[in-house]
């Protein structure tokens, strides 16, 4: 199996900071893997995700996504790679409140020609509707403006947007922390099913250790991050 994400002697510090926030000798996530990355608040989880998503650029060290070294890509190429190959789910407020659920999902293809291509055989709207239905939204809910949906529904719409057009990697940044226990387990189950159907890699970040048993592989950020260990 090929690697999906590979970190090599990664160092990162915010401008003006005394010591690096992240210093990760190595981390590899292979394709199709479902990985839980656990870390305390403020331990640099979101920053790490920003680096993998190509929003920030690292200092010394290497971030490879799908075999491409992000440091060698221009801003535009990184944006394009993220649009095409990475589905991103936030903790909450994932959606543009003024668009319908369905429009929020199809927005994923707006900047992503590769995703549109993968959907070629299918109508984008139809595909979005299928995903939303599989994630448990009724056709009426799919047409509602996003701000009228419950938080749980919104997270499922966000998942549908991340999944549409089969990107290689889904990054979920504490997507369940705004949900209660029942909804949380439900959401993770649905996410797993969808990822399996598309053979999508899942990088799931949380501070909640109780989720670890659900994942085949689970990583403690403090264990791989030498900078974090030094700070604590």
């Amino acid at each position, binding site marked *: 199996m090929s690697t999906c994400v590979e970190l090599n002697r990664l160092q990162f510090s915010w401008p003006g900071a005394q010591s690096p926030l992240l210093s990760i000798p190595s981390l590899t996530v292979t394709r199709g893997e479902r990985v839980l990355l656990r870390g305390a608040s403020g331990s640099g989880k979101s920053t790490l995700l920003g680096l993998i998503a190509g929003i920030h650029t690292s200092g010394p060290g290497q971030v490879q996504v799908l075999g491409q070294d992000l440091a060698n890509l221009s801003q535009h190429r990184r944006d394009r790679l993220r649009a095409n190959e990475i589905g991103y789910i936030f903790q909450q407020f994932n959606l543009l409140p003024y668009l319908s659920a369905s429009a929020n999902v199809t927005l994923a293809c707006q900047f992503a020609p590769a995703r549109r291509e993968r959907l070629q055989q299918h109508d984008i709207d139809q595909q979005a509707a299928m995903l939303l239905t599989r994630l448990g939204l009724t056709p009426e809910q799919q047409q509602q403006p996003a701000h009228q949906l419950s938080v749980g529904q919104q997270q499922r719409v966000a998942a549908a*947007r991340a999944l549409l057009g089969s990107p290689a990697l889904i990054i979920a940044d504490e997507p369940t922390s705004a949900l209660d226990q029942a909804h949380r387990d439900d959401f993770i189950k649905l996410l797993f099913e969808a990822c399996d159907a598309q053979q999508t890699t899942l990088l799931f970040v949380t501070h909640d250790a109780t989720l670890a048993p659900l994942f085949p592989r689970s990583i403690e950020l403090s264990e791989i991050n030498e900078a974090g260990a030094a700070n604590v």
Partner: protein
Amino acid sequence: MFKLALASLWNRRGSVWLTIVAIAVSSLLLLGVERIRVQTQENFANTISGTDLIVGARTGSTELLLSSVFHIGNLSNTMSWQSYDYLQNLPGVQWHIPMAMGDSVRGFPVIATTDALFHNFQYGNKRPLAFATGKSFAEHEALTYAVLGADAAAELQLSVDDELVIAHGTGEISFTQHDAHPFLVSGILARTGTPIDRGVFIPLAAQALVHGDYLPEPATAEGHEHDHEHGHDHDHGHSHQHGPTHDHGDANPPVYTISAVLLGLENPALALRLQRVINTYKQEALSAIMPGLALQNFWRTLSLFERALVAISVLVVITGLLGMLTTLLASLRERRREMAVLRSIGAGPMTILGLLVVEAFAVTLLGVLLGTAGLYAVLFFGADVLHESLGIQVTASVLTLRELYLLAAILVAATLLSLYPAWRAYRNALADGLTVKI
């Protein structure tokens, strides 16, 4: 991207509407001022139309124009009745209106003229004079009847059959009142928005009567009564000829001198040739001017005022655009989340920048369109009111090229201004990334 910008605007429609209205009002003002400026200039040029030449004793063109059309100032030289006779008989002259000035009624200029004024004088878009009430002084047998312009009648509080006394000289207060010869009002003209509105019009012979140039012996006076003159309508083949006299030589003229003559030609193209003929007339030193050209020259001297007006409305537009800038900048803070979501699905910082520029453009475009619609609403519903109350004549014509340029300039300015908040959003997008610290 355009759809996304519109959807985002729709989401914030409350404040966006206000911005659009502000831009609409300011562009309405700019267009309105521009239109009033241009149309005032046109009106100014339209104070007289259809008249091809104005002739007076040798003088400057502005003096002749001011005294004959605007009834301002006083011509120191007058032309003889013989010259007037000569002018009437020039080839191609279709009609002629003699004017003798110098008297006033409480500051309103008295113009001694003939009935031809009411038939042949035109202003604006070739509109003839019309009577609001009453009739021409020529329809009375006696000479002591006057026709008043609309403003003169309103301010002197005179109506038909009221009496008025004419003073010598043009001052507000005159020590020489011609009260031996009180006049009666025979008619009042409809408002024209031109200096005609301030005029008091009396028959030529009446001025002579007032001044005592001419002693009205019963027989001669009869010979110059206007109803009688219709029978003498023999020259120039024009049915509206109401010249005071056409019996050259054998009868005394009603006055010996007049101030100016308005000439209408059968073919306006003849004006230039006729102007030269008149200017080189040997018997008397005369000046002939073409009113259109003289008005244009005169308008140029008034351009300072119009420039101030334009400057003010440009400042108002700038205020409107700054309002939009403020709204855009203020909205950036609450929209950081929106930007982060867009970034997460692959929108580059340039896309974020473009989104804001498109947004500003759309808002301004709507504002400008609304302002233009407002202008037409005002022109359509308010044109009559404006004309009646202020004498400003504005018409709801198609946007001129210059007005389109102005609107385009507003759009360009708005787009350039929006680059600042767009750049801020761009910077935010780079700095925030996907984590928004609010």
